[in-house]
């Protein structure tokens, strides 16, 4: 069976993940930014880009496959702890690399096991939301209780790593160097996910989102595809978390908790779950906006965030990207 055999409904025009041009503009702008700006902006944006990467991992799952997860922060935290634990050991290979790889693997394997366990029994929709919520709470609790390994509730310190390759040794303790490393990773994740979503795998995921029974009837083992999507998404969240840990220099259990998980869902919901780029920008912009409002009115910023959030959901169904995506369609529909 090949992609052409997929039902037509699988590829509605409005749901294509957009052309390359906007993404090129966004990443180029981000690449030029440290040339123009200095100081805090350059320091903080990598953290927000990593939130953006976590948001993309959720968009893959939620926008593409129709599975909402409240567990992304749990995987993010696992990634952060993995690199922290890795870097506190003397290893023959660069411990940062081992830490990142371990983080990704632990997340992906955990998600694969749990995903298969649940999807194979037909757990979906709000039930899956609850399970992933429980997952992130469990990560938080384990991080609190295994204090020998994680430093418990008081958190764990992580050093900035040294980027090594044959003939190269680059300590990432400057703002600019780590900025570009994070940017490259974010762009690579975007490009990879985009390629994947436009390939056959992505189309099958969309098919599952639109009508899972039909995909099963067509002979696709949807459970495996959903499990793969969940594992991939968890691995990406873990990667983002690992880089976040080294950038921030500190991780603590609340990084895995329900509140941060919900925040990730908010980014994606506001920006638009149907677009990877929108999700990425959602992570970056909503975090920046929080930061800005909290500096402006430390007592009231959460109120404004809540109101903005409600407004975004009410006014733009499918997020801002979904709204923008429908605009040309509407215009075309006019005589």
């Amino acid at each position, binding site marked *: 069976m090949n992609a052409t055999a997929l039902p037509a409904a699988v590829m509605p025009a409005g749901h294509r993940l957009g052309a390359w041009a906007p993404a090129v503009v966004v990443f180029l702008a981000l690449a030029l930014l440290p040339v123009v700006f200095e100081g805090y902006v350059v320091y903080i944006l990598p953290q927000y880009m990593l939130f953006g990467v976590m948001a993309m991992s959720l968009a893959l799952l939620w926008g593409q496959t129709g599975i*909402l997860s409240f567990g992304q922060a749990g995987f993010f935290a696992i990634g952060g702890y993995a690199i922290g634990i890795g870097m506190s050991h003397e290893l023959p290979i660069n411990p940062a690399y081992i830490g990142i790889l371990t983080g990704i693997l632990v997340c992906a394997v955990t998600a694969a096991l*749990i995903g298969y*366990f*649940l999807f194979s*029994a*037909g*757990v979906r*929709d*709000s*039930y899956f*939301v*609850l*399970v992933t*919520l*429980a*997952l992130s*709470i*469990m990560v938080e*609790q*384990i991080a*609190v*209780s295994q204090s020998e390994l994680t430093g418990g509730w008081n958190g764990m310190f992580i050093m900035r790593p040294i980027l090594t390759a044959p003939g190269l040794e680059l300590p990432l303790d400057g703002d600019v160097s780590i900025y570009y490393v994070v940017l490259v990773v974010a762009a690579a994740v975007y490009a990879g996910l985009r390629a994947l979503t436009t390939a056959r795998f992505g189309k099958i995921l969309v098919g599952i989102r639109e009508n899972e029974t039909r995909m099963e009837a067509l002979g696709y083992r949807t459970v495996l595809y959903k499990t793969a999507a969940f594992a991939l998404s968890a691995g990406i969240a873990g990667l983002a978390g690992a880089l976040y840990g080294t950038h921030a220099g500190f991780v603590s259990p609340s990084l895995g908790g*329900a509140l941060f998980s*919900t925040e990730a*869902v*908010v980014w994606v*919901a506001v920006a638009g779950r149907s677009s990877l780029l929108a999700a990425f920008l959602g992570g970056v912009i909503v975090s920046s906006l929080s930061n800005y409002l909290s500096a402006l009115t430390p007592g*009231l910023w*959460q*109120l404004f*965030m*809540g*109101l903005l*959030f*409600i407004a975004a*959901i*009410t006014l733009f*169904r499918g997020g801002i990207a979904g709204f923008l995506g429908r605009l040309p369609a509407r215009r075309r529909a006019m005589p």
Partner: protein
Amino acid sequence: MLASILSVAVDAVLITLVLALAASGLAVIFGLIGVINLGHGAMLTLGAYFMWWATAHGTPFVLAVLLAALGVCLVGLLLEHLLIRHFYDEPFETLLLTWGFFLVCTEVIKLAFGTDFRNVANPLSDTITVLGLELPAYRSLVALLSLVLLLALAAVIFRTGIGIKVRALVQNREVASLLGLDVGLVYKQVFAAGTFLAGLAGALISPMLSIDPYIGNVFLIRSFFAVTVGGLGQILAGTLVGSFVIGGAETLFALVSSQVFAQTVVFALAIVLLRFRPAGLVGGRR
């Protein structure tokens, strides 16, 4: 030995019933009309604050409980009318909107009632002796009320005209609307009932807890699991069984392990239960 088994059992029952009370509003809103109400915690909090405000202004306890519940119900109706009713078809959107409600409500509470801890005096501060066990009187009363409330709810749903409409709606919306049922109105009534229950629970629980702007959230996730593990739509048995699994089991595990480990185990158990009984322990087909 027997006495200690008995006291563990009584503790588990008390915890189960108080959790069931906190979860009852969610059991109605999530269980009957499928709205994932992440604002449930904020509604409990709001109930507690209304209760504090009313008692601080000299309102008698029972009247204050009713006023608090009605106040929260009003807020809930406003939320439903302005936002939720436009999104019943979209579960993710209602989930997000109710989360937005939580954010806004918490901040408004801070502005209106301040950020200090508040407290509501315990109206029955004595203890009673049951089966040789000394129990806190007010907590026992609340547990009893919780049971009565759930029984009454079940009676409403299974014995009255409104109940029949709601059940028809839950089972098949298209048919219900073809039969001339005003779907929007029934949804509104159910939502209002759910928020009333949340306000009532918040008010009744307030003398046992600290009142701060985040108090309701300690019950939010527990309530979700209680309702889901028990079975959506199973107002009486489902909520009780679910609350026992989430609340009571924690008490039992805590006997043999640390508290944190007991909580982790309970969540893991909930995941496994959802896997093997997706319709809930009490649920039929769904």
